């Protein structure tokens, strides 16, 4: 894991001092609301429905036990004892006091954390695959590149006031877990015939009001040119992105208006001026950063015997076997598995975690996973390096602490934004919908029979809950002051990302569990063999779902 140099630390501390000054000038009336707004947003601070909301950056989702313990302490002292994992791998506090935010930032800086550029019209947190470095199908570890991009984008002097927010994601595997097709810039690590590392560059993807799948504008960008090429893209966007209408301001609108081909030409023309400039990466710098992401001290383990004992434990304990199947993933090192701690038990807002749970997870990470933890864009936490022989003991402890619900990848592992309970942008609440669905479908055998299925809920069209790429997407809408929910079907994230299609007229909140049940029944009646929900959905189209769901409305 990356460790700050003296310079990195100094930058973060100077940022704390700068924000402390801005906050006190605002409180003294020297900065207007209008002027303080983008300044605080660039530090992740929103003024929400009930209180400010502070979004803390978790660069590419990577945490360690020291950081979790610090966060536990912060949420206990300055908040109501819990925080929230977001769909961009960050962490949100829902109840901090504005006056106390500078102090929270100072404490975060002690453990090399910050809230830099977690909001505002600037380059946001760089996200990646939660299984980076341990995935069996990895071409190259994306994290060093993410860190290089983090440093390049941090306080970039030219790009602090872009037309709109700007999100970059990096994937190092063929199977994309970083959603690079729906980012402003998506980077896919590739190797050329000579075995050299480079990036396939996509631009103009995004969700929100106008969901778009990104377009490839360069098939192979040699790694040396990563920063200058991205500088060219963001510079073109900064100059020509729409600033008159915030709903048309994202880069996707510009790319679509110009066409990806023309956009690529503009970028190449700008890049021709700066290609080879000192911002060109050096082997030395890449080596320096990569040195922080070396393998932990894996043991040489007897995989066969570990597998045999796992099989025995699984046979004796059905609950363990379910957890093993759903909540653990293959690791590239024999004898290890990746464990996902579910933050989706029924009755808790998806992605919420308490101070004592944070501490419990920190303890588990220290004991079982080289003290490292990852946040996922599905709003769970991951222990990436657990010995198979430790899984049973870990499961027992995780169960006691409340995050061993064996539902990863199933219907109830749903993605859900904070919605109208917290967010002032929301048109409707999302957490109660999530809970009602979790309560209705709490039978594990039924869930497992449904198999892999994503259900994503957003409380408004800003799409923080990624509803466009859920197999089932739920979008909260406001009709004359009342909350309704629109359903979309057939979306998927990943390498072959597709956007969902709207099913039809929206529903009241209390109808939602019944509607979802009807949709699931259509799937169960139509699936062939072990066909997944998304495949059945794509094969049979929307009509059978419409017929079932709207049957009563049409007589």
């Amino acid at each position, binding site marked *: 894991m990356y460790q700050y140099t003296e*310079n990195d630390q*100094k*930058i973060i501390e*100077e*940022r704390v001092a*700068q924000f402390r000054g*801005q906050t006190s000038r605002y409180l003294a009336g*020297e*900065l207007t609301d209008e*002027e303080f707004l*983008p*300044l605080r947003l660039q530090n992740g601070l929103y003024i929400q429905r009930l209180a400010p909301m502070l979004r803390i950056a978790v660069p590419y989702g990577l945490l360690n036990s020291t950081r979790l313990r610090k966060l536990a302490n912060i949420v206990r002292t300055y908040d109501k004892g819990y925080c929230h994992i977001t769909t961009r791998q960050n962490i949100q506090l829902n109840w901090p006091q504005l006056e106390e935010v500078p102090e929270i930032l100072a404490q975060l800086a002690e453990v090399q954390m910050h809230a830099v550029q977690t909001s505002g*019209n600037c380059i946001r947190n760089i996200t990646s695959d939660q299984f980076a470095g341990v995935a069996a199908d990895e071409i190259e570890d994306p994290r060093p590149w993410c860190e290089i991009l983090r*440093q*390049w984008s*941090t*306080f*970039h*002097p*030219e*790009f*602090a*006031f*872009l*037309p709109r927010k700007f999100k970059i994601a990096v994937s190092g595997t063929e199977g994309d877990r970083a959603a690079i097709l729906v980012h402003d810039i998506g980077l896919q690590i590739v190797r050329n015939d000579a075995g050299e590392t480079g990036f396939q560059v996509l631009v103009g993807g995004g969700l929100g009001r106008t969901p778009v799948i990104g377009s490839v504008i360069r098939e192979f960008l040699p790694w040396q040119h990563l*920063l200058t090429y991205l500088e060219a893209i963001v*510079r073109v966007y*900064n*100059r020509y992105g729409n*600033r008159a209408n915030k709903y048309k301001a994202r880069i996707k609108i510009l790319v679509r208006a110009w066409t990806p081909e023309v956009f690529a030409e503009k970028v190449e023309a700008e890049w021709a*001026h700066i290609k080879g*400039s*000192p*911002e060109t*990466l*050096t082997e*030395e*710098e890449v080596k*320096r950063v990569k040195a922080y992401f070396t393998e932990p001290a894996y043991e040489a383990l007897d995989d066969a015997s570990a597998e045999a004992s796992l099989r025995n434990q699984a046979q004796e304990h059905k609950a363990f076997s379910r957890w093993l199947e759903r909540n653990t993933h293959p690791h590239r090192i024999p004898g290890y598995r990746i464990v996902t701690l579910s933050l989706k038990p029924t009755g808790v807002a998806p992605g919420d975690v308490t101070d004592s749970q944070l501490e419990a997870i920190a303890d588990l990470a220290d004991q079982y996973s080289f003290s490292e933890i990852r946040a996922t864009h599905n709003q769970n936490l991951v222990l990436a390096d657990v010995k198979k022989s430790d899984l049973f003991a870990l499961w027992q402890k995780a169960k006691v602490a409340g995050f061993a619900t064996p539902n990863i990848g199933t219907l109830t592992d749903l993605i859900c934004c904070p919605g109208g309970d917290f967010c002032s942008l929301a048109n409707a609440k999302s957490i109660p919908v999530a809970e009602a669905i979790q309560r209705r479908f709490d039978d594990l055998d039924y869930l497992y029979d449904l198999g892999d299925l994503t259900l994503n809920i957003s409380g408004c069209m800003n799409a923080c809950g990624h509803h466009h790429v859920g197999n089932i997407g739920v979008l909260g809408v406001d009709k004359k002051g009342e909350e309704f929910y629109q359903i979309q079907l057939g979306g998927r994230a990943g390498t072959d990302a597709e956007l969902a299609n709207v099913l039809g007229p929206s529903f009241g909140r209390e109808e939602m569990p019944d509607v979802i049940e009807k949709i699931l029944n259509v799937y169960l009646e139509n699936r062939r063999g072990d066909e997944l929900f998304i495949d059945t959905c794509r094969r049979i189209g929307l009509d059978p779902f419409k017929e079932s769901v709207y049957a009563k409305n049409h007589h």
Partner: protein
Amino acid sequence: MPKIIIKDKIVDDKWEVLPKAFLGEPPVNKLLLLPMKYWLEHSENLRLPVLGIWIDSDEEVEDIGEKANMFPVIAINFPSFTDGRGFTAGRLLRERYGYNGQLRAIGHVIRDQLFNLKRCGFDAFQLRDGTDLEEALKSLNDFSVTYQGDANEPNPLFRRDQ
């Protein structure tokens, strides 16, 4: 006389900005910042000893390009402090066209942007009315370390001697 920050000093602002829609003959005995478009259209006939231009955020610095060094002062207008196009304009004038005269930020510019403006090549800053300029000077040095190369230091942190 209004005040302006030049480099790290607060001084009288002797330059006057002619509005974008200006027509007719500019007064001869004043230090004037002409709209870039006006200068491009009238440069043949102008009889002004010293003059500067100002460029609006929706205009292209390429239009002045190599001719930039004809002017002792070029101003970039920020219609709103959230309109970040001027940051790119500053860098292009300095880094692409080698402009070495005074580069000033005018319009709605706030103290909290001074550090970034300086890094994008600006050396004169007309801050919005009501700014405590003495206090604002501190923001020119909000950070002592930066990651990227910029208009003053072409090398990013990883290429500098550390």
